[in-house]
Protein backbone atom coordinates (compact mmCIF):
# COMPACT_ATOMS: atom_id res chain seq x y z
CA UNK A 1 0.00 0.00 0.00
CA UNK A 2 1.25 3.47 -0.83
CA UNK A 3 1.17 5.71 2.17
CA UNK A 4 2.70 8.94 0.87
CA UNK A 5 1.30 11.27 -1.68
CA UNK A 6 3.03 10.74 -5.00
CA UNK A 7 2.58 14.21 -6.40
CA UNK A 8 5.32 16.58 -7.52
CA UNK A 9 4.99 20.35 -7.90
CA UNK A 10 7.15 22.54 -10.06
CA UNK A 11 7.10 26.15 -8.89
CA UNK A 12 10.15 27.51 -10.76
CA UNK A 13 10.81 28.21 -14.39
CA UNK A 14 12.96 25.59 -16.02
CA UNK A 15 13.39 22.59 -18.25
CA UNK A 16 12.01 19.14 -17.60
CA UNK A 17 13.98 16.47 -19.42
CA UNK A 18 14.58 12.76 -19.59
CA UNK A 19 18.04 11.33 -19.14
CA UNK A 20 18.94 7.66 -18.60
CA UNK A 21 15.43 6.49 -17.73
CA UNK A 22 15.02 9.16 -15.12
CA UNK A 23 13.61 12.65 -14.96
CA UNK A 24 15.73 15.76 -14.44
CA UNK A 25 14.63 19.29 -13.75
CA UNK A 26 16.92 22.21 -14.63
CA UNK A 27 15.95 25.25 -12.65
CA UNK A 28 16.34 28.56 -14.52
CA UNK A 29 17.28 31.90 -13.01
CA UNK A 30 15.90 35.23 -14.21
CA UNK A 31 18.10 35.23 -17.32
CA UNK A 32 16.96 31.74 -18.37
CA UNK A 33 20.31 30.29 -17.34
CA UNK A 34 20.48 26.94 -15.54
CA UNK A 35 21.21 27.56 -11.90
CA UNK A 36 20.30 24.23 -10.32
CA UNK A 37 19.59 20.67 -11.47
CA UNK A 38 17.77 18.03 -9.52
CA UNK A 39 16.52 14.52 -10.15
CA UNK A 40 12.84 13.71 -9.88
CA UNK A 41 12.74 9.97 -9.12
CA UNK A 42 10.39 8.52 -11.71
CA UNK A 43 9.23 5.61 -9.57
CA UNK A 44 8.22 7.82 -6.69
CA UNK A 45 5.70 10.00 -8.51
CA UNK A 46 2.31 9.55 -10.14
CA UNK A 47 1.65 13.08 -11.30
CA UNK A 48 3.34 16.42 -11.78
CA UNK A 49 1.80 19.87 -11.41
CA UNK A 50 3.41 22.48 -13.64
CA UNK A 51 2.54 25.88 -12.17
CA UNK A 52 5.13 27.93 -14.05
CA UNK A 53 6.78 28.19 -17.46
CA UNK A 54 8.39 24.79 -17.99
CA UNK A 55 9.91 23.52 -21.22
CA UNK A 56 9.33 19.89 -22.09
CA UNK A 57 10.03 17.91 -25.26
CA UNK A 58 8.27 15.00 -26.96
CA UNK A 59 10.97 12.53 -25.92
CA UNK A 60 10.23 13.33 -22.27
CA UNK A 61 6.47 13.28 -22.81
CA UNK A 62 6.66 9.84 -24.43
CA UNK A 63 8.71 8.62 -21.48
CA UNK A 64 6.17 10.03 -19.02
CA UNK A 65 3.35 8.35 -20.94
CA UNK A 66 5.19 5.05 -20.75
CA UNK A 67 5.49 5.43 -17.02
CA UNK A 68 1.80 6.33 -16.67
CA UNK A 69 2.50 9.75 -15.22
CA UNK A 70 -0.13 12.46 -15.41
CA UNK A 71 0.77 16.10 -16.03
CA UNK A 72 -1.37 19.08 -15.02
CA UNK A 73 -0.70 22.38 -16.73
CA UNK A 74 -1.58 25.74 -15.21
CA UNK A 75 -1.67 29.18 -16.82
CA UNK A 76 0.21 32.23 -15.53
CA UNK A 77 -2.58 33.20 -13.13
CA UNK A 78 -2.89 29.81 -11.53
CA UNK A 79 -5.83 28.87 -13.72
CA UNK A 80 -6.07 25.29 -14.86
CA UNK A 81 -5.20 24.80 -18.53
CA UNK A 82 -5.25 21.07 -19.17
CA UNK A 83 -3.84 17.61 -18.61
CA UNK A 84 -1.49 15.37 -20.43
CA UNK A 85 -2.59 11.88 -19.71
CA UNK A 86 -1.00 8.65 -20.89
CA UNK A 87 -2.70 6.76 -23.65
CA UNK A 88 -0.36 3.84 -24.14
CA UNK A 89 -1.15 0.11 -24.05
CA UNK A 90 0.18 0.42 -20.53
CA UNK A 91 -2.63 2.76 -19.40
CA UNK A 92 -5.80 1.31 -18.00
CA UNK A 93 -8.66 3.50 -19.16
CA UNK A 94 -9.62 1.64 -22.29
CA UNK A 95 -12.71 -0.38 -21.58
CA UNK A 96 -15.44 -0.09 -24.20
CA UNK A 97 -17.71 -2.09 -21.93
CA UNK A 98 -17.50 0.39 -19.04
CA UNK A 99 -18.01 3.35 -21.38
CA UNK A 100 -21.18 1.81 -22.84
CA UNK A 101 -22.54 0.99 -19.39
CA UNK A 102 -21.76 4.53 -18.23
CA UNK A 103 -23.70 6.01 -21.14
CA UNK A 104 -26.61 3.63 -20.53
CA UNK A 105 -26.70 4.59 -16.85
CA UNK A 106 -26.69 8.25 -17.83
CA UNK A 107 -29.63 7.75 -20.19
CA UNK A 108 -31.57 5.77 -17.61
CA UNK A 109 -33.32 8.57 -15.64
CA UNK A 110 -33.98 6.40 -12.58
CA UNK A 111 -30.38 5.28 -12.32
CA UNK A 112 -28.95 8.70 -13.01
CA UNK A 113 -31.18 10.26 -10.36
CA UNK A 114 -30.26 7.50 -7.93
CA UNK A 115 -26.52 8.10 -8.30
CA UNK A 116 -26.91 11.88 -8.21
CA UNK A 117 -29.04 11.62 -5.08
CA UNK A 118 -26.58 9.37 -3.27
CA UNK A 119 -23.74 11.77 -4.06
CA UNK A 120 -25.74 14.72 -2.72
CA UNK A 121 -26.73 12.82 0.44
CA UNK A 122 -23.06 12.12 1.16
CA UNK A 123 -22.16 15.76 0.47
CA UNK A 124 -24.84 17.04 2.87
CA UNK A 125 -23.91 14.61 5.63
CA UNK A 126 -20.22 15.44 5.35
CA UNK A 127 -20.91 19.18 5.38
CA UNK A 128 -23.23 18.84 8.40
CA UNK A 129 -20.52 16.85 10.19
CA UNK A 130 -18.19 19.84 9.72
CA UNK A 131 -20.68 22.14 11.44
CA UNK A 132 -21.23 19.70 14.30
CA UNK A 133 -17.47 19.36 14.75
CA UNK A 134 -17.18 23.10 15.38
CA UNK A 135 -20.11 23.01 17.81
CA UNK A 136 -22.61 24.74 15.59
CA UNK A 137 -26.24 23.81 15.73
CA UNK A 138 -27.11 22.81 12.20
CA UNK A 139 -30.01 20.60 11.26
CA UNK A 140 -29.56 18.78 7.96
CA UNK A 141 -32.73 16.66 8.35
CA UNK A 142 -35.16 18.95 6.48
CA UNK A 143 -32.76 19.13 3.55
CA UNK A 144 -32.29 15.37 3.47
CA UNK A 145 -36.06 14.89 3.60
CA UNK A 146 -36.59 17.32 0.74
CA UNK A 147 -33.90 15.51 -1.23
CA UNK A 148 -35.65 12.19 -0.65
CA UNK A 149 -38.66 13.51 -2.58
CA UNK A 150 -36.68 14.87 -5.53
CA UNK A 151 -37.47 13.10 -8.78
CA UNK A 152 -35.02 14.57 -11.22
CA UNK A 153 -31.72 16.37 -11.38
CA UNK A 154 -33.22 19.85 -11.37
CA UNK A 155 -34.95 19.14 -8.08
CA UNK A 156 -31.78 17.63 -6.64
CA UNK A 157 -29.82 20.70 -7.67
CA UNK A 158 -32.46 22.94 -6.05
CA UNK A 159 -32.19 21.00 -2.75
CA UNK A 160 -28.42 21.23 -2.95
CA UNK A 161 -28.60 24.99 -3.59
CA UNK A 162 -30.81 25.55 -0.52
CA UNK A 163 -28.51 23.44 1.57
CA UNK A 164 -25.37 25.21 0.39
CA UNK A 165 -26.88 28.59 1.31
CA UNK A 166 -27.64 27.46 4.87
CA UNK A 167 -24.26 25.78 5.13
CA UNK A 168 -22.27 28.80 4.00
CA UNK A 169 -24.13 30.92 6.57
CA UNK A 170 -22.55 28.76 9.25
CA UNK A 171 -19.09 29.61 7.93
CA UNK A 172 -19.09 33.03 9.64
CA UNK A 173 -19.60 31.27 12.96
CA UNK A 174 -16.82 28.76 12.30
CA UNK A 175 -14.19 31.20 11.00
CA UNK A 176 -12.96 33.47 13.79
CA UNK A 177 -11.42 36.24 11.67
CA UNK A 178 -14.60 37.82 10.39
CA UNK A 179 -12.88 41.03 9.41
CA UNK A 180 -10.83 39.76 6.47
CA UNK A 181 -12.72 36.57 5.78
CA UNK A 182 -16.39 37.35 6.09
CA UNK A 183 -18.54 35.16 3.93
CA UNK A 184 -21.33 37.05 2.19
CA UNK A 185 -21.98 35.30 -1.09
CA UNK A 186 -20.22 32.66 -3.15
CA UNK A 187 -18.61 34.27 -6.19
CA UNK A 188 -16.62 32.62 -8.95
CA UNK A 189 -14.75 33.57 -12.09
CA UNK A 190 -13.21 35.64 -10.69
CA UNK A 191 -13.73 35.23 -6.93
CA UNK A 192 -14.43 38.70 -5.53
CA UNK A 193 -13.16 38.43 -1.97
CA UNK A 194 -10.44 36.58 -0.08
CA UNK A 195 -12.59 33.78 1.28
CA UNK A 196 -13.96 33.04 -2.18
CA UNK A 197 -10.48 33.08 -3.67
CA UNK A 198 -9.42 30.57 -1.04
CA UNK A 199 -12.44 28.32 -1.69
CA UNK A 200 -11.85 28.46 -5.42
CA UNK A 201 -8.18 27.57 -5.14
CA UNK A 202 -8.80 24.62 -2.82
CA UNK A 203 -11.71 23.37 -4.89
CA UNK A 204 -9.63 23.45 -8.08
CA UNK A 205 -7.06 21.29 -6.34
CA UNK A 206 -9.69 18.81 -5.20
CA UNK A 207 -11.15 18.67 -8.70
CA UNK A 208 -7.71 17.81 -10.02
CA UNK A 209 -7.12 15.12 -7.44
CA UNK A 210 -10.50 13.59 -8.24
CA UNK A 211 -9.78 13.79 -11.95
CA UNK A 212 -6.43 12.05 -11.64
CA UNK A 213 -8.05 9.31 -9.58
CA UNK A 214 -10.78 8.93 -12.21
CA UNK A 215 -8.11 8.59 -14.88
CA UNK A 216 -6.78 5.60 -12.95
CA UNK A 217 -10.11 3.82 -13.40
CA UNK A 218 -11.98 3.05 -16.62
CA UNK A 219 -14.67 5.70 -16.08
CA UNK A 220 -14.97 8.42 -18.68
CA UNK A 221 -14.69 11.84 -17.00
CA UNK A 222 -16.88 13.42 -19.70
CA UNK A 223 -20.09 11.76 -18.52
CA UNK A 224 -21.37 12.91 -15.14
CA UNK A 225 -24.52 12.15 -13.20
CA UNK A 226 -25.19 15.06 -10.85
CA UNK A 227 -23.81 17.88 -12.98
CA UNK A 228 -25.05 18.51 -16.47
CA UNK A 229 -22.34 17.16 -18.78
CA UNK A 230 -23.53 18.76 -22.00
CA UNK A 231 -21.83 22.12 -21.84
CA UNK A 232 -18.37 21.39 -20.57
CA UNK A 233 -15.45 19.16 -21.41
CA UNK A 234 -15.11 17.12 -18.26
CA UNK A 235 -17.55 16.82 -15.40
CA UNK A 236 -17.48 13.49 -13.58
CA UNK A 237 -14.74 14.77 -11.30
CA UNK A 238 -17.09 17.57 -10.21
CA UNK A 239 -19.57 14.92 -9.07
CA UNK A 240 -16.93 13.05 -7.15
CA UNK A 241 -15.53 16.25 -5.63
CA UNK A 242 -18.97 17.11 -4.15
CA UNK A 243 -18.42 14.35 -1.60
CA UNK A 244 -14.85 15.31 -0.79
CA UNK A 245 -15.02 19.11 -0.82
CA UNK A 246 -16.47 19.29 2.72
CA UNK A 247 -14.10 16.62 4.04
CA UNK A 248 -10.82 17.90 2.60
CA UNK A 249 -11.34 21.44 1.35
CA UNK A 250 -13.65 23.08 3.87
CA UNK A 251 -11.82 21.55 6.82
CA UNK A 252 -8.51 22.76 5.42
CA UNK A 253 -9.86 26.29 5.04
CA UNK A 254 -11.29 26.37 8.57
CA UNK A 255 -8.18 25.07 10.25
CA UNK A 256 -5.73 27.22 8.27
CA UNK A 257 -7.70 30.40 8.87
CA UNK A 258 -8.37 29.72 12.54
CA UNK A 259 -4.72 28.87 13.19
CA UNK A 260 -3.78 32.08 11.32
CA UNK A 261 -1.60 30.11 8.89
CA UNK A 262 -3.24 32.04 6.10
CA UNK A 263 -3.90 35.72 6.75
CA UNK A 264 -4.90 38.69 4.64
CA UNK A 265 -1.19 39.24 3.87
CA UNK A 266 -0.97 36.00 1.89
CA UNK A 267 -3.03 37.44 -0.94
CA UNK A 268 -1.69 39.60 -3.73
CA UNK A 269 -3.83 41.58 -6.08
CA UNK A 270 -2.93 41.18 -9.72
CA UNK A 271 -4.79 43.40 -12.17
CA UNK A 272 -7.89 43.20 -9.99
CA UNK A 273 -7.58 39.45 -9.51
CA UNK A 274 -6.82 37.99 -6.12
CA UNK A 275 -4.10 35.42 -6.03
CA UNK A 276 -1.95 33.67 -3.44
CA UNK A 277 1.72 34.44 -3.02
CA UNK A 278 4.15 31.59 -3.70
CA UNK A 279 4.78 31.11 0.03
CA UNK A 280 1.05 30.80 0.66
CA UNK A 281 0.73 28.19 -2.09
CA UNK A 282 3.52 26.19 -0.49
CA UNK A 283 1.77 26.32 2.89
CA UNK A 284 -1.56 25.27 1.41
CA UNK A 285 -0.04 22.46 -0.62
CA UNK A 286 1.76 21.06 2.43
CA UNK A 287 -1.60 20.96 4.23
CA UNK A 288 -3.24 19.45 1.17
CA UNK A 289 -0.65 16.66 0.94
CA UNK A 290 -0.99 16.01 4.65
CA UNK A 291 -4.74 15.70 4.33
CA UNK A 292 -4.56 13.50 1.25
CA UNK A 293 -2.22 11.05 2.95
CA UNK A 294 -4.15 10.74 6.20
CA UNK A 295 -5.49 7.26 6.64
CA UNK A 296 -9.06 6.14 7.15
CA UNK A 297 -10.42 2.77 8.04
CA UNK A 298 -13.20 1.27 5.92
CA UNK A 299 -14.23 -2.15 7.10
CA UNK A 300 -10.98 -3.97 7.76
CA UNK A 301 -8.90 -2.10 5.21
CA UNK A 302 -6.97 1.10 5.77
CA UNK A 303 -6.92 3.68 2.99
CA UNK A 304 -5.27 7.03 2.48
CA UNK A 305 -7.63 9.85 1.48
CA UNK A 306 -6.46 9.54 -2.11
CA UNK A 307 -7.24 5.85 -2.12
CA UNK A 308 -10.64 6.59 -0.60
CA UNK A 309 -11.34 8.85 -3.59
CA UNK A 310 -10.30 6.09 -5.99
CA UNK A 311 -12.46 3.61 -4.13
CA UNK A 312 -15.37 6.02 -4.47
CA UNK A 313 -14.82 6.14 -8.24
CA UNK A 314 -14.70 2.35 -8.25
CA UNK A 315 -17.96 2.21 -6.28
CA UNK A 316 -19.64 4.35 -8.93
CA UNK A 317 -18.12 2.14 -11.61
CA UNK A 318 -19.49 -0.92 -9.91
CA UNK A 319 -22.94 0.63 -9.56
CA UNK A 320 -22.82 1.41 -13.29
CA UNK A 321 -21.60 -1.99 -14.43
CA UNK A 322 -23.39 -4.32 -12.06
CA UNK A 323 -26.33 -2.35 -10.68
CA UNK A 324 -25.03 -2.81 -7.17
CA UNK A 325 -26.29 -0.35 -4.54
CA UNK A 326 -24.18 2.78 -4.15
CA UNK A 327 -23.65 4.82 -1.03
CA UNK A 328 -21.39 7.85 -0.89
CA UNK A 329 -18.45 8.01 1.49
CA UNK A 330 -19.39 9.67 4.78
CA UNK A 331 -16.71 10.47 7.30
CA UNK A 332 -17.22 8.37 10.42
Amino acid sequence: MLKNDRTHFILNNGLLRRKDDNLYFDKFDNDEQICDTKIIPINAIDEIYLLTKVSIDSYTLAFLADQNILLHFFGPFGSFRGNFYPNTPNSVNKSGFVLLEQLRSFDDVTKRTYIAKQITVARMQNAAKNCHKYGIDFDEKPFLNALEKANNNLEIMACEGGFAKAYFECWNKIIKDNKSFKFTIRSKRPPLDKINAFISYVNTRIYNVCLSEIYKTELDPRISFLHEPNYRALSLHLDLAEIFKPIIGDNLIFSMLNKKEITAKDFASDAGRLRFTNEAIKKIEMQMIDRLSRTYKIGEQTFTMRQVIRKEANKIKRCICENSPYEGFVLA
Partner: protein
Amino acid sequence: MFNQDQVSGTLVNYFTTCKREAWLYAHQIHARQDDENILMGKALASIKEPNLQDFPFSNLKFDKLSKLKGHYQITEYKKTLKNKEAAINQLLFYMYILKTNLKLKLISGKVICGKTVLSVEGNDENFVKMKLTIEDIVSLVNEPKAPPPVAKKICKNCAYNDYCF
Protein backbone atom coordinates in the same frame (compact mmCIF):
# COMPACT_ATOMS: atom_id res chain seq x y z
CA MET B 1 -18.78 -11.47 -28.90
CA PHE B 2 -15.70 -12.83 -27.22
CA ASN B 3 -14.00 -15.65 -29.11
CA GLN B 4 -11.25 -18.18 -28.56
CA ASP B 5 -8.52 -16.08 -30.19
CA GLN B 6 -8.93 -13.40 -27.57
CA VAL B 7 -8.08 -15.70 -24.68
CA SER B 8 -4.70 -14.78 -23.18
CA GLY B 9 -2.38 -16.45 -20.71
CA THR B 10 -3.23 -14.00 -17.96
CA LEU B 11 -6.92 -14.70 -18.52
CA VAL B 12 -6.36 -18.45 -18.08
CA ASN B 13 -4.46 -17.74 -14.90
CA TYR B 14 -7.27 -15.53 -13.56
CA PHE B 15 -9.92 -18.03 -14.60
CA THR B 16 -8.27 -20.71 -12.52
CA THR B 17 -7.97 -18.34 -9.55
CA CYS B 18 -11.30 -16.51 -9.56
CA LYS B 19 -14.09 -16.46 -12.15
CA ARG B 20 -15.07 -12.90 -11.31
CA GLU B 21 -11.52 -11.67 -11.80
CA ALA B 22 -11.43 -13.32 -15.22
CA TRP B 23 -14.72 -11.71 -16.27
CA LEU B 24 -13.57 -8.26 -15.18
CA TYR B 25 -10.19 -8.63 -16.83
CA ALA B 26 -11.74 -9.72 -20.11
CA HIS B 27 -14.00 -6.65 -20.03
CA GLN B 28 -10.93 -4.45 -19.62
CA ILE B 29 -11.85 -3.54 -16.07
CA HIS B 30 -8.36 -3.47 -14.63
CA ALA B 31 -7.09 -3.93 -11.12
CA ARG B 32 -5.21 -1.22 -9.24
CA GLN B 33 -2.04 -0.70 -11.23
CA ASP B 34 -0.08 0.58 -8.23
CA ASP B 35 -0.64 -2.61 -6.26
CA GLU B 36 2.64 -4.01 -5.00
CA ASN B 37 2.06 -7.51 -6.38
CA ILE B 38 1.11 -6.15 -9.80
CA LEU B 39 4.22 -3.97 -9.90
CA MET B 40 6.38 -6.96 -9.01
CA GLY B 41 4.69 -9.04 -11.69
CA LYS B 42 5.40 -6.34 -14.26
CA ALA B 43 9.02 -6.19 -13.22
CA LEU B 44 9.25 -9.99 -13.56
CA ALA B 45 7.68 -9.84 -17.01
CA SER B 46 10.35 -7.41 -18.15
CA ILE B 47 13.06 -10.07 -17.63
CA LYS B 48 12.48 -11.58 -21.04
CA GLU B 49 14.60 -13.05 -23.72
CA PRO B 50 15.40 -10.07 -25.95
CA ASN B 51 14.86 -11.96 -29.21
CA LEU B 52 11.41 -13.22 -28.24
CA GLN B 53 9.88 -10.20 -30.00
CA ASP B 54 10.85 -11.74 -33.36
CA PHE B 55 9.07 -14.98 -32.62
CA PRO B 56 5.73 -15.16 -34.48
CA PHE B 57 3.74 -16.02 -31.38
CA SER B 58 5.27 -13.27 -29.28
CA ASN B 59 1.80 -11.98 -28.43
CA LEU B 60 1.60 -14.93 -26.09
CA LYS B 61 3.88 -13.14 -23.64
CA PHE B 62 5.59 -16.14 -22.11
CA ASP B 63 8.93 -15.47 -20.53
CA LYS B 64 11.43 -17.76 -22.20
CA LEU B 65 11.60 -20.13 -25.16
CA SER B 66 14.36 -22.66 -25.61
CA LYS B 67 15.10 -25.69 -27.75
CA LEU B 68 15.86 -28.86 -25.85
CA LYS B 69 16.96 -32.05 -27.62
CA GLY B 70 14.96 -31.14 -30.68
CA HIS B 71 11.78 -29.98 -28.97
CA TYR B 72 10.65 -26.65 -27.62
CA GLN B 73 10.58 -25.79 -23.96
CA ILE B 74 8.90 -22.69 -22.58
CA THR B 75 9.49 -21.13 -19.20
CA GLU B 76 7.35 -18.92 -17.03
CA TYR B 77 8.68 -17.00 -14.03
CA LYS B 78 6.48 -16.50 -10.98
CA LYS B 79 6.98 -14.49 -7.82
CA THR B 80 5.34 -17.09 -5.59
CA LEU B 81 3.91 -20.53 -6.09
CA LYS B 82 0.99 -19.95 -3.75
CA ASN B 83 -1.28 -20.36 -6.70
CA LYS B 84 0.31 -23.41 -8.26
CA GLU B 85 -2.63 -24.56 -10.34
CA ALA B 86 -3.11 -21.17 -11.98
CA ALA B 87 0.56 -20.91 -12.93
CA ILE B 88 0.51 -24.40 -14.41
CA ASN B 89 -2.65 -23.72 -16.36
CA GLN B 90 -1.21 -20.49 -17.74
CA LEU B 91 1.87 -22.31 -18.96
CA LEU B 92 -0.21 -25.14 -20.33
CA PHE B 93 -2.23 -22.62 -22.32
CA TYR B 94 0.94 -21.28 -23.99
CA MET B 95 2.04 -24.83 -24.74
CA TYR B 96 -1.36 -25.72 -26.17
CA ILE B 97 -1.45 -22.71 -28.49
CA LEU B 98 2.10 -23.26 -29.70
CA LYS B 99 1.58 -26.95 -30.24
CA THR B 100 -1.64 -26.63 -32.19
CA ASN B 101 -0.49 -23.67 -34.27
CA LEU B 102 2.99 -24.90 -35.10
CA LYS B 103 1.93 -28.56 -35.29
CA LEU B 104 4.71 -29.56 -32.93
CA LYS B 105 5.25 -33.17 -31.97
CA LEU B 106 6.59 -32.55 -28.52
CA ILE B 107 6.59 -29.55 -26.20
CA SER B 108 7.38 -29.18 -22.54
CA GLY B 109 7.41 -26.37 -20.04
CA LYS B 110 8.45 -25.33 -16.59
CA VAL B 111 7.46 -22.79 -13.99
CA ILE B 112 10.34 -21.23 -12.10
CA CYS B 113 9.97 -19.54 -8.76
CA GLY B 114 13.15 -18.88 -6.85
CA LYS B 115 14.89 -22.24 -6.56
CA THR B 116 11.79 -24.33 -7.17
CA VAL B 117 11.11 -25.65 -10.65
CA LEU B 118 7.83 -27.23 -11.66
CA SER B 119 7.85 -29.27 -14.83
CA VAL B 120 4.70 -29.42 -16.91
CA GLU B 121 4.30 -32.23 -19.36
CA GLY B 122 2.71 -31.64 -22.71
CA ASN B 123 0.68 -34.86 -22.81
CA ASP B 124 -2.71 -35.40 -24.45
CA GLU B 125 -4.58 -35.58 -21.17
CA ASN B 126 -3.44 -32.06 -20.23
CA PHE B 127 -4.26 -30.65 -23.65
CA VAL B 128 -7.78 -32.06 -23.67
CA LYS B 129 -8.31 -30.42 -20.26
CA MET B 130 -6.95 -27.15 -21.65
CA LYS B 131 -9.29 -27.26 -24.62
CA LEU B 132 -12.27 -27.60 -22.29
CA THR B 133 -10.95 -24.78 -20.07
CA ILE B 134 -10.72 -22.43 -23.04
CA GLU B 135 -14.32 -23.23 -23.99
CA ASP B 136 -15.39 -22.55 -20.40
CA ILE B 137 -13.61 -19.21 -20.45
CA VAL B 138 -15.32 -18.12 -23.65
CA SER B 139 -18.76 -18.96 -22.30
CA LEU B 140 -18.01 -17.23 -18.98
CA VAL B 141 -16.82 -14.02 -20.61
CA ASN B 142 -19.85 -13.93 -22.90
CA GLU B 143 -22.16 -13.82 -19.88
CA PRO B 144 -23.75 -10.35 -19.68
CA LYS B 145 -22.90 -9.86 -16.02
CA ALA B 146 -19.95 -10.58 -13.79
CA PRO B 147 -20.35 -13.39 -11.26
CA PRO B 148 -21.10 -11.80 -7.86
CA PRO B 149 -18.14 -11.41 -5.48
CA VAL B 150 -17.63 -14.09 -2.85
CA ALA B 151 -15.26 -13.23 -0.02
CA LYS B 152 -12.41 -15.72 0.00
CA LYS B 153 -9.07 -15.83 1.75
CA ILE B 154 -7.17 -14.74 -1.36
CA CYS B 155 -9.30 -11.59 -1.71
CA LYS B 156 -7.16 -9.92 0.95
CA ASN B 157 -4.18 -9.65 -1.38
CA CYS B 158 -6.10 -9.16 -4.62
CA ALA B 159 -5.69 -5.86 -6.46
CA TYR B 160 -9.41 -5.90 -7.27
CA ASN B 161 -10.41 -5.75 -3.60
CA ASP B 162 -11.27 -2.06 -3.62
CA TYR B 163 -13.62 -2.71 -6.54
CA CYS B 164 -15.29 -5.89 -5.28
CA PHE B 165 -15.88 -4.84 -1.68
